[in-house]
């Protein structure tokens, strides 16, 4: 899955590519851990039909923690890297802008199809991760030893504080289920997949393709989430959801199990690190001709210069031209510095000359009574644009041979191998201002639970009326109410948070393998002590708020309910030692021994 370049190539292509390696690890606690590494590459390619020469690139490196280094030299010459700005200025006749550049690269010849690549490492601590991943599940834990299904909510968003201003960030992704330990999976999954019910909750118009991935033995265990250009996260986050099924044989009480990974492909149409190409200078095939006419009777000579673009596909801009004449030296080489008076002409035409085109200077006259030799030189360079050079910036995910992108989001969910308590609360109108409250406490794990505490709060302007009981009655471990109609272990008035009363029930251990449907009339599970139902009735009066009744807590820690408060155990005491009596005894024995010896 790759992104197509939307920019046509110019003959000389200078591209700054920030290559970002990112890894994210999701946890059931809804936290994400990121690691990131940024490397800036500068790729110089001759995509045209003409050999190019004397290429100079002035580069502004930003937050680099290494020097600019040659990564690949596919040119027909050596590549020079220098920090000497005046050297670069001289070599380009002052046509290369050097202000703001840290380093200069010179490629003497870059023939058709050749490429040079350079790179430097960027200080990653200066940048945030471009694509943020937020993943959650509709359950925080799943039981082992039974096939369960959970819904994954995956949110990808642009880290707006990190990506460059005005940039667009495009993503596609592929989700893989895996029970292969070598590929971000856990072999505790005996069944994993299929992926089902994929749905976009945002409006990027992504399409979903479920296919048979390589990391489980099952089918429909991979999901492509794509659009032709990629979802543009700068216009809003990409929210998707899908269902995952699995069965784990985890034996441990609690284990954070990897169940696969998502591969994120991203592209930003700007440079991420802020590095920049300050200027580019390059030349190509050209011809320069001088014309000498004369002399006339007054010994006046005419001189002119003609410059022809002999390239097939590049356009030049002619910068500086100098024209001058020196005396001929019979049998020797003329002295180039003996300029004949009136012959020296210098000008900056600034004209562009297309392939095959030419430019001719005006004719300039000078007087000389002997034979002059006419000289001309020039500087020219490729224009910036489609027939010259182009500077492009982009940021892409680092390529990974195995997965396509190095941006791997590892996904985990807590699997409970022993017991797992789920509490469901129902508040049902019972006529008038009466409401039935059902607390259904189920053990959906594979082992008998320990003692379970269930907590509930009664809001203000409600009163518990008529009755309160536990089914089965034998499951209430401690009843401290002293009232045959109201069963509870603890009753606390004004427990805080504006609630009127708090109740707690200490339940005997609950048998395993309830189905977890929260059904308060499942007589089979209730009679098997897999499910315990606490029932009571409240009556509202005055300005009561029913929504405040939707609160429930369970203890112990292995609970589906996030509001579970585990029993807290604090260890303290004393481990002090004092050996003074032993020291005193040793001293006394020593003295006694000395006295005995002395008397003898």
């Amino acid at each position, binding site marked *: 899955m790759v992104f197509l370049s939307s920019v046509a190539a110019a003959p000389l292509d200078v591209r700054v590519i920030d290559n970002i390696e990112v890894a994210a690890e999701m946890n059931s606690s809804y936290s994400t851990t990121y690691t990131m590494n940024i490397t800036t590459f500068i790729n110089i390619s001759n995509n045209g039909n003409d050999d190019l020469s004397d290429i100079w690139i002035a580069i502004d490196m930003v937050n680099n923690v290494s020097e600019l280094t040659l990564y690949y030299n596919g040119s027909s010459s050596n590549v020079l890297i220098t920090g000497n700005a005046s050297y670069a200025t001289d070599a380009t006749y002052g046509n290369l802008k050097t202000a703001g550049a840290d380093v200069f690269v010179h490629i003497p010849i870059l023939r058709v199809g050749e490429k040079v690549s350079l790179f430097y490492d960027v200080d990653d601590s200066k940048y945030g991760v471009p694509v943020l991943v937020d993943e959650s599940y509709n359950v925080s834990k799943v039981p082992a030893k039974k096939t369960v299904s959970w819904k994954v909510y995956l949110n990808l968003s642009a880290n707006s504080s990190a990506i460059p201003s005005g940039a667009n960030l495009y993503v596609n992704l592929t989700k893989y289920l895996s029970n292969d330990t070598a590929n971000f999976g856990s072999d505790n999954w005996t069944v994993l997949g299929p992926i089902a019910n994929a749905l976009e909750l945002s409006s990027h118009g992504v399409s979903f393709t479920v296919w048979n991935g390589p990391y489980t033995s099952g089918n429909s265990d991979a999901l492509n989430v794509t659009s032709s250009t990629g979802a543009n996260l700068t216009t809003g986050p990409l929210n998707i959801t899908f269902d995952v099924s699995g069965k784990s044989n985890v034996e441990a009480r609690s284990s954070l199990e990897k169940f696969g990974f998502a591969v994120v492909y991203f592209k930003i149409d700007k440079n991420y690190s802020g590095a920049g190409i300050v200027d580019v200078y390059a030349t190509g095939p050209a011809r320069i001709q001088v014309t000498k006419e004369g002399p006339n009777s007054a010994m006046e000579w005419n001189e002119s210069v003609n410059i022809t673009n002999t390239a097939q596909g590049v356009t030049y801009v002619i910068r500086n031209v100098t024209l001058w004449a020196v005396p001929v030296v019979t049998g020797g080489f003329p002295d180039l510095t003996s300029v004949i008076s009136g012959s020296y002409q210098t000008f900056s035409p600034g004209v562009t000359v297309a392939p095959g085109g030419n430019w001719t200077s005006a004719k300039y006259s000078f007087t000389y009574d002997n034979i002059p030799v006419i000289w001309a030189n020039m500087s020219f360079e490729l224009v910036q644009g489609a027939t010259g050079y182009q500077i492009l910036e982009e940021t892409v995910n680092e390529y990974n041979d195995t997965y396509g992108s190095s941006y791997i989001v590892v996904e985990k969910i807590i699997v409970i191998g022993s017991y797992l308590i789920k509490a469901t609360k129902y508040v049902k109108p019972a006529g008038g201002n009466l409401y039935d409250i059902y607390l259904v406490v189920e053990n959906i794990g594979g082992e008998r639970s320990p003692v379970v505490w269930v907590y509930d709060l009664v809001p203000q302007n409600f009163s518990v009326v008529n009755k309160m009981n536990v089914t089965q009655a034998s499951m209430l471990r401690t009843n401290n109410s002293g009232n045959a109609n109201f069963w509870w272990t603890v009753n606390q008035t004004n427990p805080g948070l504006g*609630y009127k009363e708090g109740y707690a029930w200490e339940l005997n251990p609950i048998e395993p393998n309830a189905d977890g449907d929260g059904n308060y009339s499942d007589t089979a599970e209730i009679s098997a002590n897999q499910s315990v139902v606490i029932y009571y009735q409240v009556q509202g009066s005055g300005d009561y708020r029913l929504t405040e009744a939707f609160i429930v807590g369970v203890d112990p820690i292995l609970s589906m309910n996030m509001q579970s*408060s585990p029993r*807290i155990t*604090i260890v303290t005491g*004393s*481990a002090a*030692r004092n050996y003074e009596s032993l020291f005193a005894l040793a001293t006394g024995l*020593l003295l006694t021994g000395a006295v005995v*010896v*002395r008397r003898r």
Partner: protein
Amino acid sequence: MRPLSLILIVIVTLNAVHAQEAWVEEIEMYNLSISVDGGVKVISRITLKNLISKPIVPGLVEFRIQRQVPMKLLIFPIPFTSDKKPVKISNVEAKTADGKEIKVDIKNHEDYTSLICQIWYPIEPHANLTFLLSYSSEDLIEKGILFSEIAIPIGTDMNIKKLTVTTESKLKKTYEVLPSPQIPAGGITFYRAEFSSLPLPKVGMPWSYLIWGLILFVTAGIIIMSKRRS
């Protein structure tokens, strides 16, 4: 920090299992205030923080208090031995920081004593609840001839983000080792101190070893010298 054997190891093991689970609470602040006189009075001021977006009820908070002392031959301690015992506790009192009552049950087990606080006050999402538990015990101090030692372990099955210890005594504190300021779930740390009625400065090691070692050394020296003269 180091493990404290038996019951503490049980907690450490249990929490190694839970290490990657979603925590719903943590101890944001644990202040241990220790008054040393004839015995020791301990006031634990604990701030529980609700880490989730729903109210939670702390429910039962159990303090397991154990005394580990060397075995003794008559009145003399035997080095490198350890005996685990419950602790005699008196004057137990618990309340929230704003004065609301907390019921405490005391249970003596074979080798430790439990103080079980019942905290039925909900904590709002991401809010705190601070409670205090105080008790006195003469078992928490090891008295010698010239010096008294305390070594109090502190550990729990959830993260302690900040631990502080303060002491108060009419006696001079002659030696002190502060505990770790943060304890991960299942970890344990110790506060150690030595007190004496002698006005001695802190020298980085317990004076009880230094003085008695010195007495033993001088005594042996005098005996050897006098034997040589004779």
